[in-house]
């Protein structure tokens, strides 16, 4: 039982019925670490141009789910399809699959020995074999869009957290991914820097990118997410539109979680 009776109908309508069109399709995903089950039977669809937010307490399985989709972890059971290709097939070239997905981590994980421009162009040049000039031109356009043009030659340790995270987003975008995975990308930032990163995500939504993100920013999820999924103990307890899940939660644990989070605003 993954959703309550009321929401399962809505959730199914918005998601599971559109199986053919979903860009990302997760079915029965299961993952455990050393005997501890982190994800149990996750079903989730992300349609093209959609922004889907995963919410839930720490340890609920949000990050693990994203890691499984990007094949940074192998799944125990279930399938992940991206644009009709099964990513969980062990015969698949995992590097080729990862090239179709852009990931941004909570702790930025920029390459400290490379300047901003080289951080952004490394994957296009090496993994996608684009010529340096073309890669750099595209990277400069991306950096301009993210307000980082004057930082192109700086090294990551000279940038603020917000700037580093925007570079990380530029790096993820540089390979023109079909799907973006954001893993609590504002969680490590000082409060006054959160806005500049979320603005970028809002801009990406406007541009029609497909994003699956784990986040603690309920305000952002409310106005930017097409769908919100609430995870608890590795199970999607409730999913639906942002207004519905955040404004009128049906499942008791969603209500509990939201009141805990919103109390401390």
């Amino acid at each position, binding site marked *: 039982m993954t959703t309550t009776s009321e929401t399962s109908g809505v959730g199914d309508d918005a998601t599971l019925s559109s199986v053919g069109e979903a860009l990302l399709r997760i079915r029965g995903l299961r993952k455990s670490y050393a005997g501890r089950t982190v994800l149990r039977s996750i079903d989730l669809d992300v349609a093209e141009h959609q922004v889907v937010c995963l919410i839930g307490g720490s340890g609920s399985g949000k990050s693990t789910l994203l890691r499984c989709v990007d094949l*940074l972890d192998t799944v125990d059971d279930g399938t992940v399809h991206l644009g009709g290709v099964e990513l969980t097939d062990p015969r698949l070239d995992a590097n080729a699959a*990862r*090239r179709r997905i852009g990931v941004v981590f909570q702790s930025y994980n920029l390459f400290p020995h490379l300047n901003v421009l080289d951080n952004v162009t*490394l994957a296009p040049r*090496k*993994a996608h074999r684009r010529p340096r000039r073309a890669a750099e031109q595209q990277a400069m356009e991306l950096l301009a869009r993210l307000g980082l043009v004057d930082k192109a030659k700086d090294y990551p340790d000279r940038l603020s957290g917000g700037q580093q995270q925007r570079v990380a987003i530029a*790096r993820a975008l540089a390979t023109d991914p079909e799907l973006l995975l954001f893993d609590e990308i504002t969680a490590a930032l000082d409060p006054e820097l959160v806005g500049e990163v979320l603005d970028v995500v809002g801009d990406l939504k406007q541009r029609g990118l497909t994003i699956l993100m784990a986040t603690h920013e309920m305000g952002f999820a409310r106005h930017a997410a097409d769908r919100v999924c609430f995870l608890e103990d590795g199970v999607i307890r409730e999913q639906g539109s942002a207004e519905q899940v955040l404004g009128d939660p049906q499942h008791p644990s969603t209500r509990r979680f939201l009141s805990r989070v919103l109390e401390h605003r």
Partner: protein
Amino acid sequence: MDEHTAAAPLPADEPASPGGYPGGAAADDYHPGAASDDGYTPGAVRRERERYRRARRRRDGLIAAACTVGLLAAVCAAVVSSPGWGNVHALFLNGAEFRRYFGDILHGFWLNVQMFLVSELCILVLGLVIALVRVTRAPGLAPVRWAATLYVDVFRGVPTLLLVFLVGFGLPALQLQGTPSSPVVLGCMALVLSYTAYVGEVFRAGLNSVHPAQRNAAKALGLNESQTLRHVILPQAVRNVVPPLLNDFISLQKDTALVATLGPLEALRVAQIHSNYDFNYTPYLVAALLFIAVTIPMTRYADRLQSRATQRQWAEAGR
């Protein structure tokens, strides 16, 4: 000790360069003029503080100098007043012997430097190869990986002097075609065999010291194993291991003297010959001084790199 570059009150538009300290700036040190882009001039409070800090540093410097001189004087007095000092002075500190053989031993020492440079190059390349072989997971390389592990285990466990004997006398005895017969080459081969095992482990530790998040980030971008290694892991690993590598090279520089046992006329061997001839040990002192003249600057340099690396790690950990 660290003399501040900005001892005099600072002109407002001229920031003091923190790179001016000889020993590397201490992190908690005060940086006068660090923020002077807004027309700020130091006021009375700051000038007073700086005066106080200068006075303190001067006092600390004087205490350090006085203690050093005092200790040296005490040690010298103890040595000179010892009953055997007359003999030691004649046997080890003979000025005439020193002058007579210095040139000869220096000439021999040049051979040590050459052996050091050539061996170092080979060791760096081979050590890196060993480390890379040991960290890759390609199934086809499994036998090479086992061989590399065995090699490292064996050659780290054998004393370097023993290796010099084994290679120096054993290899020519095989009478294989194409084996070198020059003791210099054989000696260098022994050094390379021994030190490559160490340096390979240093490189491997460096490769493992790069944070796993970096590997993940590279993987997430779609870089394959070798691209990740080449563009992300290796550059950071090398940066991390420069200080420990320098320490190994200081030790290698000294160990070139072990090749003396095979007979080539390097510093120690020349000193030994002269010392046996005159029954005077001063030539050994000459050789020792020559080694020190090279190793001390290397040691200082390694220390400086090490402290800089430590500072960098602290800075990165603080983020």
